[in-house]
């Protein structure tokens, strides 16, 4: 049986609940009353504030640039706030920025990304949760072998598997379509999600499962009536992981879809890095923020659950 000790340890270590218990066990640990302005404190907070400013700087510059007009950008410095706030660049980025011959803005990419992300998230989580459930509770001969291949597969560079997948999708007649891309996201989300669900289901009290079995419940009944309702937190973690991961994907979007289905990231790159025309940095930055907005929203709303999700998903890189 493969033991993914390390990932579990990280996922557990970063888990807020686990943190609390370890604090409780190791005796008094709370803040010691301390003078607010000790030299050490100044150093610690000073450094942290400088670091925080560094992390925030690009976001700040992005927003400021997107609110300026081009003449002001040419004259001024990127850190200065706009003298005259304009939302023109945002409107242009959303509805009329050009990629090649198409001039209907990022909105097309946005809706494509929605049409990719929603079904991909649902399908990949549905399949992976059932996998995890089967692995945790209904282990059959050979199941662990497949699972091991799956986990090892998570480390294989995508480039190695891309072309064979192109062939498979072409054979199925879905290469270039949204369906094809959804299959691809399901495939590459599977290792980490299956691991996540397997570990979670394995941690649920076995008595529940046994009691249901004694009462005559089968595979699907137990899954839908017992496992699913009990596991909402892990489904939310998986959802955060998938929504941000799929939204941010670039490579699969480029390889597996036709231009009319390009996700937002691909379209953004095409708009900003297009060689023809005058560079409109304010429009570019507005477009960049728009593309980053969805994962940022998920991040700020979900807080610590996101940390848990990426700790589990870090292997996905």
């Amino acid at each position, binding site marked *: 049986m493969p033991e993914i000790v390390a990932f579990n340890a990280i996922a557990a270590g970063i888990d807020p609940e686990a943190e609390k218990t370890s604090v409780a066990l190791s005796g008094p640990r709370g803040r010691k009353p301390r003078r607010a302005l000790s030299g050490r404190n100044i150093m610690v907070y000073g450094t942290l504030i400088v670091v925080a400013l560094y*992390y925030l700087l690009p976001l700040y510059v992005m927003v400021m640039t997107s609110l300026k007009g081009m003449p002001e950008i040419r004259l001024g410095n990127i850190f200065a706030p706009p003298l005259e706030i304009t939302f023109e660049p945002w409107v242009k980025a959303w509805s009329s920025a050009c990629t090649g011959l198409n001039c209907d803005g990022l909105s097309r990419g946005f809706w494509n990304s929605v049409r990719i992300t929603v079904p991909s998230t649902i399908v990949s989580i549905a399949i992976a949760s059932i996998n995890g459930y089967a692995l945790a509770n209904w282990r059959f001969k050979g199941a662990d072998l497949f699972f091991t291949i799956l986990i090892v597969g998570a480390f294989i*560079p995508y480039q190695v598997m891309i072309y064979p997948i192109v062939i498979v999708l072409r054979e199925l007649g879905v290469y270039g379509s949204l369906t094809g891309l959804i299959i691809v996201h399901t495939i590459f989300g599977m290792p980490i999600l299956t691991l996540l669900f397997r570990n979670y289901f394995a941690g649920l009290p076995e008595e529940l499962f046994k009691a249901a079995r004694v009462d005559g419940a089968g595979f699907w009944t137990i899954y839908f009536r017992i496992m699913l309702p009990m596991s909402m937190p892990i489904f939310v973690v998986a959802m955060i992981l998938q929504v941000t991961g799929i939204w941010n994907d670039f490579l699969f979007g480029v390889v597996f879809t036709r231009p009319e289905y390009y996700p937002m*990231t691909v379209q953004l790159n095409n708009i900003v890095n297009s060689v023809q025309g005058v560079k409109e940095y304010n429009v570019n930055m507005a477009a960049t923020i728009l593309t980053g907005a969805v994962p940022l929203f998920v991040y700020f709303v979900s807080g610590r659950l996101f940390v848990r999700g990426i700790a589990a998903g870090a292997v996905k890189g």
Partner: protein
Amino acid sequence: MGHTRGSGRPNQWLRNLNAKLASIPMILTAVVIFLGGTVWTVVYSFTNSKLLPRLSFVGLDQYERLWAAPRWLMSVQNLAIYGLFSLIFSLVIGFLLAALMDQKIRFENTFRTIMLYPFALSFIVTGLVWQWLLNPEYGIQSVVRSLGWTSFAFDPLYNSNIVIYGILIAALWQGTGLVMCLMLAGLRGIDEDIWKASRVDGIPMWKTYVFVIIPMMRGVFITTLVIIASGIVKVYDLVVAQTSGGPGIASEVPAKYVYDYMFQAQNLGQGFAASTMMLITVAIIIVPWAYLEFGGGRKRA
């Protein structure tokens, strides 16, 4: 588990049938895509496939051509520099930040939120923001010059000697928050008594970190290393967004080489050979780690 064994006499295959049916997608993915796809690519890397995959074997030709191609050599060199520095910097910075965060500070959540938000962004977004910040005409360079230091030069994205460091800056901005979080989890896992003991013995804090805490966190360090390393090999989007491999071929990376040869240059054989080299690189990182981490567990009590 007892229930899987049962008294199943009727038919081996029918037992647990639902679980097997439900696992078909997983089995297909594992066997057809992960295993089959990898083997397929490796096999076809020995052929002279051009526009379409063809099974006419040419031995190691593709690999010889690969290792003679300046662009590939540049890609490998870039990956080595980028990989080495990004490993060192993200481990060191990540650990230092985690140690700072572990000083029982206030607003820990706020600081963590700020340091980790870049990780939520796509590499494309990160790449484009840093492309803008590093723009020599309007970005950091021009701001510093306008302050009076007119000879200040900081244009990594337009200087082929240092372009890879420009990409490194963006990558570190995006990734160190995650490393910090992993390290912080590791620090939190360390018994508080160790700190008490070192304080009683009057050992300076940095010495406790270097000689006691870090050795105790070996596992976390190794895992983080593997996570960073397997991400490094895949670096692609960031380069595409920031420089598209330029100036010239100065910031090419292997993943981009693979993509370009497979889907643009219609030279599949080269693409397969290059991706096989990527596979080997990952194997060199993963296999020793997997052996260390799971080798002992194989005995099974």
